[in-house]
């Protein structure tokens, strides 16, 4: 048996609905036989009647409703159809969920699932990675699982946490990524994972780019380089210690993300390493992001727009040559 990243998300939700009667799922097209645009809730409406609810096309109200339910003791999961449409709910997420605990002392345990990131032919409005926006504002935890195991355990943790969680699941990984089984153990939230230890260069990344980075690391091994790959897992909180420990091993840093290049996760990571681990660096750190344009529809353009194994390997070689 094997389980995909998408199935892990579905299974985590089944588990949550089964174990915790406070949990319900709220989103567009997630109910009935349909089970969501990506089938992440397939079968759950039938198994858990009244707890997997279709909503109108009203992202702002979806999140507002979830906030109210959370204040009343529930543990809602909101599925955005695409991360890109969470722009409509941004006010509720940042200004209502994000400020609730700090203002009122009452926690606001909502989980917002954002099907994120680019896939072939999806274009400017069905491809975005918005973790950088949500992490910038206070009051939110932002998760970006890169593996089937993390997709499963982190979603379960997300719902257990008393604070609002933005759970960025990557659409490219939905079907491409498979594991043999659901995980038995889990790494705590807030801890990054050294996916592959190395001594010559640290590639710090998250979500889909972990896999591109691993492929690039493999390529570089042929040249005799040992690349340390760190998967951040959550971009907020960001596990600075694990990142610094990696840079301490290698002296060199490349930070890779799929989102837009101004600010965001890669700038934050480099800022942390530069400010807190400056003496660890033997060479200038570098970053690789998508280009500073909307995400193109055409595969020829899209493949140039986002980082990938080749561009990562190329950039890594430049750093290693310094």
């Amino acid at each position, binding site marked *: 048996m094997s389980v995909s990243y998408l199935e892990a998300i579905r299974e985590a939700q089944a588990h949550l609905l089964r174990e915790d009667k406070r949990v319900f799922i709220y989103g567009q097209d997630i109910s009935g036989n349909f089970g969501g645009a990506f089938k992440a809730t397939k079968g759950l409406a039938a198994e858990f009647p009244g707890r997997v609810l279709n909503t109108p096309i009203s992202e702002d109200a979806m999140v507002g409703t979830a906030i109210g339910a959370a204040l009343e003791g529930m543990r809602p999961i909101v599925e955005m159809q695409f991360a890109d449409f969470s722009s409509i709910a941004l006010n509720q997420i940042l*200004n209502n969920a994000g400020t609730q*605990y700090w203002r009122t002392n009452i926690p606001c345990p909502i989980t917002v699932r954002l099907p994120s990131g680019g896939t072939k032919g999806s274009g400017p409005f069905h491809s975005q990675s918005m973790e950088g926006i949500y992490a910038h504002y206070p009051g939110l935890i932002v998760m970006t699982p890169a593996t089937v195991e993390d997709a499963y355990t982190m979603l379960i943790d997300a719902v257990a946490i008393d604070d609002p969680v933005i759970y960025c699941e990557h659409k490219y990984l939905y079907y491409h990524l498979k594991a043999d089984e659901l995980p038995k153990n889990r790494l705590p939230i807030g801890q990054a994972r050294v996916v592959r230890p190395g001594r010559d260069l640290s590639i710090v990344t998250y979500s889909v780019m972990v896999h591109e980075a691993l492929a690039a690391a493999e390529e570089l091994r042929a040249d005799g380089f040992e690349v340390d790959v760190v998967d951040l897992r959550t971009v907020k909180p960001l596990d600075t210690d694990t990142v610094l420990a990696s840079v301490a091993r290698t002296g060199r840093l490349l930070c890779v993300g799929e989102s837009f290049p101004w600010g965001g996760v890669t700038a934050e990571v480099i800022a942390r390493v530069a400010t807190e681990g400056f003496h660890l660096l033997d060479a200038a750190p570098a970053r690789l992001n998508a280009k500073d344009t909307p995400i193109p529809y055409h595969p020829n353009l899209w493949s140039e727009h986002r980082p990938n194994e080749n561009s990562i390997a190329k950039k890594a070689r430049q750093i290693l040559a310094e």
Partner: protein
Amino acid sequence: MLQTAGRKGTSTPGKAAPHKRYLEAFRWMLQTRIFEEKLTSLYRGGLITGGVYVGRGQEAVSAACGMFLKKGDVFAPLIRDQAGRAAFGEPLLDVARTYLGSRQGPMRGRDGNIHRGRPRAGQLAMISHLGAMIPVVVGTLLAKRMKGEKDFVGLTTIGEGGMQTGATHEGMNIAAVEGVPFVLVATNNHYAYSTPNDREFVCADLVDRAPAYGYEGRSLDGTDLSECLDVIGGAVERARAGGPPQLVVASTLRLAGHGEHDDASYVAAEIKGEDFARDSLQRAEEFIKEEGLADADTLAQWRADATAQVNEAVSTAQEEAAPDGNEEDWSAISTRTLTDRIS
């Protein structure tokens, strides 16, 4: 069509129960007026930081909003709801502490003035973005239903200006789709800050929005306390009894600035002579006197009681310590182990 036009003119409450209710409401209104005048004078004296927002002119509407709600209900008051907050049970000390920035208030100096609440007591703490509290109320009601609670209702208020936000639309609609016991009381006080109705919306009466969402709609004269109690009380009752969501649209004039920093010099002179520009508190007091519902001594005593309560709340709050930045732990999340360490 479910909607009925608001009656004009003074209404005559006929029975004893309504009289008792009327007088109770009047006392909340009176207390509110006294408290808000106190806040204004503190503000003018430089003793309040930030804005002061009062409900002058709409105390009747607001009092009625708070009075029909019980423990277990949810109230999301807005900018002009001191009367309703008090009627629903918010301690006066919460108000004083929040305006004066006491660390002992519910917001502990982190937020101020009208942005206060105690979600656990069913009173949500508004964010500024107008309309945003509507779906939040819906969510609390949905949760209560899921948990098997019974006999509850949720009410929130909005201005005619706030009716034009996308959040209000999505929130009103989702309440109907979920079929939760929800009441929205909208007050058209004829201005959103400085903007008159003709740059806000075009329909004849905002109650025309009710059928658009499958709500029952009523409009009313917000200066007439009796009508406020009847109509808002009725709406709460129907929602509680399983009726569709309710939209009540009250007509008033904002009898103060948008906030106390604002002299409202943009308010058209003509409009001040309209029926909806009357002062609901004054009208109620006249009615009480005319009908002999309370004598002059009683009225004076109520005023004195309210003044004493207000003064006590204010002086208590004034003696309390302000928050101290060095003692803050500066974490926006409750799970301290997950607080991001950013240097």
